[in-house]
């Protein structure tokens, strides 16, 4: 079964400096029907005005992945990490026992666009950690590029959950097939452009929950193609 979560149905908040669309309930947006999917708790689609951002705030017991769609974010945290991240970079932070961080649009002229993803960890009270891994855009062209998973492999970030996060980019006419193991679930989130998922068109911002399916067929559906994230979830 594939259940669509259309972009236009998401929660939305415009704070002036921050324009956010919430796939799942977050902050003041609360919809009991959309509290997450399996261990996937948050997908926030954030456009941040130049020079603006989130001041120092805390997290606990959450795996937080930031995936940049455009622009750059400056990150600073209580473990001493201070970085700027841009597209084609995985940033994963395990909040564990507690972490304080800030993130700001690193540009004073251009907005940034990012997906912030929260995955509930399988265990509490892990040591806080920060990972940042850059990769070539070619690694996601026409194939799945592993961004994060429970085991260190292929230059991916390690998260404390039985969840695999992939990015893939398909041009018009390109196809990808992904089998879904029995008892596993998947979430698809379109980042750019549009794709076909088992014949159904998904555009930027659209999501899809997948359960009781054995295979997923993806293809690029317009000349510009599309980029999407695939979450393989227990």
């Amino acid at each position, binding site marked *: 079964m594939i259940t669509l979560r259309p972009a236009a149905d998401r929660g939305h908040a415009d704070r002036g400096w921050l324009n956010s669309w919430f796939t799942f309930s977050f902050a003041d947006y609360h919809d009991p029907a959309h509290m997450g999917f399996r261990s996937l708790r948050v997908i926030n689609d954030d456009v941040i005005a130049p020079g603006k951002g989130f001041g120092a705030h805390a997290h606990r017991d959450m795996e937080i992945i930031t995936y940049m769609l455009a622009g750059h974010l400056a990150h600073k945290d*209580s473990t001493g990490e201070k970085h700027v991240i841009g597209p084609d970079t995985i940033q994963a932070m395990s909040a564990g*026992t*507690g972490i*304080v961080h800030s993130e*700001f649009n690193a540009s004073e002229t251009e907005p940034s666009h990012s997906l912030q993803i929260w995955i509930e960890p399988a265990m509490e009270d892990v040591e*806080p950690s920060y990972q940042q891994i850059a990769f070539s855009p070619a690694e996601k062209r026409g194939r799945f590029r592993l961004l994060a998973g429970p085991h260190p492999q292929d230059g991916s970030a390690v998260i404390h959950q039985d969840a695999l996060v992939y990015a893939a980019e398909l041009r018009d006419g390109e196809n990808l097939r992904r089998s879904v193991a029995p008892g596993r679930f998947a979430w698809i989130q379109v980042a750019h452009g549009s794709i076909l998922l088992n014949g159904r068109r998904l555009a930027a911002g659209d999501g899809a929950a997948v359960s009781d399916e054995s295979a997923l067929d993806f293809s690029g559906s317009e000349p510009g193609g599309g980029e999407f994230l695939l979450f393989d979830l227990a």
Partner: protein
Amino acid sequence: MQDVNVVVLFDSGDEAVERLALAAAVGAVQGRALIRLRRFHGTPESREYVTPRDGDADWAHAFVVGGTTANEESRRYIGQLGERVGLHVVILECDTSDAARDEGRRAAEQAREQRRKRRADS
């Protein structure tokens, strides 16, 4: 369990003081508190922090204060905090992150214990 709120407030542009404040905030989070981080006199270079807001003192069960309290405004603010009944105020006097983290955690735990006692007494 996140039933206590802790404000960590510091008053310095000194990176060492900021580090201690961050460590205290992490300690409070480890103590399962909700936190707010505040800094007197933010500058464009310190956009990570906002100055104390109206309502912070009502929201908080504990304040952890770090820094030199070098100016009159911050001294007055902290003095007013000390007069609030039931508000647990800790002045950071340590100089290592580990000690600051312990102070933050202890502040959360003590504020929780104070709340528990008040509830039991009422």
